[in-house]
């Protein structure tokens, strides 16, 4: 209700009341028109404000519903009793119990822990499970193992802990407060509207002052001149535009919400369209945020696994006997299990108890082999050694599912180099072969290759224990290791990665062609980050970093010319030592940038660096750690499903389906609404001149007032509203996704050509057309134009009841008043008819109407119909109500302005033709808005 437009309208309203005050002090019986006008202006601001508030509140409600989806509960020991209380009722000192699957209800220090692992991804963005114990291991609260943080999840094990911080004092609360400390800057469209308001105000004040000088020198009373001045300024205020823009934006917001982009503030709708840099978080935004098997290596070959969201087609060769062995190891040497009761859920969506790697392997084998639990049941587990960081392997011993085979099977997986150490043979095509130099080399090559892809590689091996040494009754003891742990047979490697979402590469390409630079900002390791960046196209296939060039040319990194590299991978460590100028240089000189190992604060720095480049920056993210950057960005985009509450509340937009591709939709809609708002504003500004000119002519030439204030209001808030909203439905003229994002300072919403063309070209033509209707009505009723000149003073004298017209007829003052209202109606109809032409020409800015299609946008025709119907109702339906100043107009007057409407359309087609024929010419520069 404040700022930009609204201020303009408020000022207009106040000026109206001041004008009335002046008039009233002079003449107690002065007309209440300016009071009405002022009140209508105020009413428009208030109503639009309420509407916008309602729209935004609706989005906020959806946000709030996210928050309340899972009311968090905590199991707390109070008064020696275990109680379940809502998490927000915890206090420092409470003892809480945590078990696998729980969300940590506050920052807690662990008092006891059994195999507890937590997922800190909501805090750090990385989904690697981290073990928790009750030992103090590090000075830093964030690194020590005995503290778990609010909002992180316990993946496995159980723990008991004491609450040490709650609410805003928790780590997550602090990041959130860092986010809230970041000031929200103005939206680009907000800046544009402000610019527009400046233009309108500038035009209004300069015309007003110019005519003030003219009227004073014409010997009008100064008070009258001041009233004229106020009248001119107020006449320039586009009353309907605030409402129109608000409705147009909310229409787009609605359309975007349908496409799963939920926009929180109306003005943010456009921001994506202006975006020139997207800083995207990796985990969860570009990637699926779950480990997935990406590659396999066995039989001396690398196989590619399907990493798409549903794993539907695993195309690698599954006929080899080696695969049979490998798959058995994958299935058996795995502690992860599906949660019960999920029979109907698709495999990839099932919840799993276990860490990310094991989950990936479980799902992978479930997809390929079918019921894993059944296989495990058939191969009963007799002993196991779980994975730990010293061993770096995991081992289990099983009975085989072949009843005739009494041997035990030992399966092992772990870090490839550790696994290989324990092997003496390697399986190739189902046959065990001794592990010699060449096979070991092949292994290393494959290991390096997969590792170089940023993937986490695991080695798999097995050993059949001889039945005579280890009979079925043999009791295995994992502590004493009473079984062989060497001379295993190496079977294969398997690598996992958090794969990119399948829609991302396409979306990245689209953003690229739309001229948007995509920067990856992640807390992850640089190699993984670079690999993902390459696979989604953020670093394109043929571009190199400085390091790549150095490696290719075999020279030191320092010798490479940094300008040769299009891509850059910058780590947080490097970023820390950089001055803002150096960061600017990197941002400006490299088109493909990946920032790895960054902290929330550094994300902020990067966003600010981008904004220094005059870019409009979008930031996508899901974690709490992203929230400060989300807030700082011109538009923060949070993920709706995986995103944390903090990210969602800091963001301006939420992708309800977590689909990065929705951003492309957002960009498209944003650009479209920007173009269409241009059209709407041009449409609305045009008739401003047609409404202002009569008043100027009235002052200068002394004609009876051609159109009254109330009638103008009926145009601005009546006939013109629906058509100008209809322009928001206009389709794009060309492929808006193939052009560069607009320049913040050069491509303004309302630029000079738009204002000049609307005011001085079409606006003037409209005014002339409307004047022709006005003169026709007066002339046919008896007042020829020559008589009308300087008739104003006599005309308005209420006591002159025998004013002579051009034919010698004498008019009473009320008869003149009625004729004046007929003139208003005629002028109104003249503008309305020409606004139809204006509406049609505004459909396009460059293309011919015929290229665009007259009937593709049906809403335009609804608009035109509404215009005509409202005008008909005003003239014929309400023509008898004196206060509205409308009269029944003779039917023929409705057609007087039609030739002028056609002229406007022809003129604009000529303008567009010249623009298309001579792109870049003087005409193009000055006439294309």
């Amino acid at each position, binding site marked *: 209700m404040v700022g930009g437009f609204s201020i303009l309208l408020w000022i207009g309203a106040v000026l109206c009341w001041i004008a009335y005050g002046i008039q009233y002090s002079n003449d107690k019986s002065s007309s209440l028109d300016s009071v009405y006008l002022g009140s209508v202006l105020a009413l428009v601001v208030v109503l639009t404000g309420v509407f916008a508030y309602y729209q935004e509140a609706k989005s906020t409600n959806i946000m709030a519903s996210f928050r309340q989806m899972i009311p968090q509960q905590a199991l707390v020991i109070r008064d020696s009793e275990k109680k379940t209380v809502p998490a927000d009722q915890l206090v420092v000192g409470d003892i809480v119990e945590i078990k696998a699957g729980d969300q940590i209800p506050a920052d807690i220090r662990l008092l006891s822990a059994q195999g507890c692992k937590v997922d800190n991804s909501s805090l750090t963005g990385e989904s690697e499970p981290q073990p928790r114990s009750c030992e103090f291991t590090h000075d830093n609260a964030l690194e020590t193992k005995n503290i778990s943080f609010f909002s992180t999840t316990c993946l496995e094990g159980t723990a008991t802990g004491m609450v040490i911080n709650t609410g805003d004092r928790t780590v997550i609360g602090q990041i959130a407060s860092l986010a809230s400390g970041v000031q929200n800057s103005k939206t680009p469209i907000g800046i544009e509207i402000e610019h527009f308001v400046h233009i309108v105000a500038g035009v209004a004040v300069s015309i007003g002052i110019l005519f003030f000088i003219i009227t004073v020198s014409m010997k009008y009373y100064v008070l009258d001149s001041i009233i004229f001045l106020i009248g001119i300024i107020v006449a320039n205020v586009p009353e309907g535009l605030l409402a129109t823009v608000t409705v147009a934006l909310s229409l787009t917001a609605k359309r975007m919400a349908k496409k799963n982009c939920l926009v929180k503030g109306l003005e943010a709708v456009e921001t994506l369209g202006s975006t020139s840099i997207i800083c995207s978080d990796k985990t969860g935004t570009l990637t699926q945020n779950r480990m997935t098997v990406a590659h396999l290596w066995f039989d001396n070959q690398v196989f590619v696994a399907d990493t798409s969201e549903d794993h539907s087609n695993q195309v690698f060769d599954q006929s080899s006997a080696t695969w049979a062995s490998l798959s058995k190891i994958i299935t058996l040497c795995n502690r992860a299990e599906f949660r019960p009761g999920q029979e109907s859920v698709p495999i990839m969506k099932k919840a799993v108890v276990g860490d990310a790697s094991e989950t990936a392997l479980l799902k992978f084998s479930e997809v390929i082999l079918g019921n894993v639990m059944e296989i495990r049941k058939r191969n009963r587990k007799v002993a196991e050694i779980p994975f730990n960081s010293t061993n770096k392997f995991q081992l289990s011993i099983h009975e085989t599912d072949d009843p005739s085979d009494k041997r035990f099977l030992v399966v092992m997986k772990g870090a490839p180099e550790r696994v290989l150490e324990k092997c003496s043979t390697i399986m190739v095509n189902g046959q065990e072969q001794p592990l010699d130099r060449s096979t070991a080399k092949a292994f290393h090559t494959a290991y390096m290759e997969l590792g170089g892809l940023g993937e986490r590689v695991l080695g798999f091996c097995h050993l059949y224990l001889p039945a005579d040494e280890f009979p079925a009754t043999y009791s295995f003891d994992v502590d004493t290791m009473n079984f062989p742990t060497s001379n295993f047979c190496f079977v294969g490697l398997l690598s996992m990665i958090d794969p990119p979402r399948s829609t991302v590469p396409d979306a990245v390409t689209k953003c690229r062609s739309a001229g948007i630079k995509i920067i990856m900002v992640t807390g992850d390791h640089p190699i993984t980050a670079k690999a993902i960046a390459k696979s989604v196209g953020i670093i394109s296939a043929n571009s190199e970093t400085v390091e790549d060039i150095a490696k290719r040319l075999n020279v030191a990194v320092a010798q490479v010319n940094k300008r040769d590299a299009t891509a850059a991978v910058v780590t947080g460590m490097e970023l820390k030592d950089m001055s803002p100028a150096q960061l600017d240089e990197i941002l400006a000189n490299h088109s493909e940038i990946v920032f790895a190992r960054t902290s929330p604060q550094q994300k902020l720095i990067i966003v600010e660096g981008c904004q220094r480049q005059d870019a409009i920056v979008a930031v996508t993210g899901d974690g709490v750690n992203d929230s400060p950057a989300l807030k700082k960005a011109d538009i923060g985009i949070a993920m709706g499903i995986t995103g944390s509450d903090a990210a969602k509340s800091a963001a301006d937009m939420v992708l309800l389906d977590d689909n990065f591709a929705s951003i492309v939709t957002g960009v498209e809609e944003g650009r479209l609404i920007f173009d269409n708002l241009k059209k709407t504003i041009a449409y609305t500004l045009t008739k401003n001149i047609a409404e202002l000119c009569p008043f100027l002519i009235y002052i200068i030439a002394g004609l009876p007032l051609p159109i009254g204030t109330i009638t103008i209001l009926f145009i601005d808030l009546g006939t013109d509203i629906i058509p100008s909203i209809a322009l928001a439905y206009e389709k794009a003229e060309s492929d808006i996704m193939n052009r560069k994002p607009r320049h913040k300072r050069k491509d303004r919403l309302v630029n000079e050509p738009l204002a000049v063309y609307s005011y001085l070209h079409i606006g003037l033509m409209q005014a002339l057309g409307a004047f*022709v209707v006005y003169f026709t009505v007066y002339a046919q009723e008896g007042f020829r134009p020559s008589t009308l000149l300087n008739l104003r003073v006599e005309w308005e004298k209420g006591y002159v009841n025998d004013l002579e017209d051009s034919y010698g007829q004498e008019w009473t003052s009320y008869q003149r008043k009625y004729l004046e209202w007929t003139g208003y109606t005629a002028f109104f109809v003249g503008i309305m008819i020409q606004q139809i032409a204006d509406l049609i020409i505004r459909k396009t800015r460059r293309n011919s109407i015929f290229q665009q299609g007259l009937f593709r946008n049906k809403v335009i025709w609804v608009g035109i119909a509404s215009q005509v119907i409202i005008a008909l109702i005003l003239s014929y339906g309400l023509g008898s109500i004196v206060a509205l100043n409308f009269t029944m107009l003779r039917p023929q007057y409705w057609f007087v302005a039609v030739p002028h409407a056609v002229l406007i359309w022809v003129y604009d087609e000529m303008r567009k033709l010249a623009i298309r024929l001579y792109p870049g010419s003087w005409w193009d520069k000055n006439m294309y808005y």
Partner: protein
Amino acid sequence: MRRQLRSRRAPAFPYGYRYRLDDQDEVNQNYLADEEEEAEEEARVMVVPDLEEEEEEKREEEESQAQETGSAWWRKWQIVNEYLWDPEKRMSLARTGQSWSLILVIYFFFYASLAAVITLCMYTLFLTISPYMPTFTEKVKPPGVMIRPFAHSLNFNFNVSEPDTWQHYVISLNGFLQGYNDSLQEEMNVDCPPGQYFIQDGDEDEDKKACQFKRSFLKNCSGLEDPTFGYSTGQPCILLKMNRIVGFRPEPGDPVKVSCKVQRGDENDIRSINYYPESASFDLRYYPYYGKLTHVNYTSPLVAMHFTDVVKNQAVPVQCQLKGKGIINDVINDRFVGRVIFTLNIET
């Protein structure tokens, strides 16, 4: 354990907490802060922020801002100046002289053609409009009524014994009746037969003759015998005329009559009115009116009301109405259609 969290290293986050794995000595990554501040910040505890230092920072910021704003205004002024006239590129308002002249030429032609268009429109408009007969007349119908003398007001306040208070009425009436002088009327106009329309067939553009309405028809109110029109004796004359409407014809038969009475109050306040011509009516021979282009000497017929015995020293509201077939005198919004209301307040 609470103490532990508040320990030296603890307050660091959320700034740069992720580094701690790689680099233990890393300080807070507040990029705004300089080295010293960082060191201090390290020692800062989480719950008790060092307020003093913050204030200092703020003050510094403010100072630098103040300096900036000063130079910012100066820079803005320079930008505006350069925009108005850029000596380097010889541009004014971001356009070169050539560009300006091109614009002037284009706008000249554009507006010239617009002027041509509007001229054409007005020309066609005049082609469709007869200079002799207005296209429509129903907005001036039914005819309005006006009185003379008229001086901005319909209140006749005057003191019989003070000629200054009524002299201007006399002057106004005299002036108004100049066109009705008998000599002039006899010279210019014809004496047409009373009681019937004075219809002049023939071409539209032919000059029409007008019927005489002589000043002497008004008898006592003609100002010929009593040059003060009765104002000096407290018996004011008021002339009433019907607004001219091209082609207007009163219904045949009884002519339109004028009848005055007290509008509100005692009916007898007026007591007697003499009408001149005595019929108190507008004769049919003055109709129709053919418009001022051809009916040049048309003189509107008048009815004079001579209030010979109106109550003195009090305001008497008088309403004079036209009466006749087809005459409307009760339009609510227009108090001058078929009627006129004025007050007489004669002091002695």
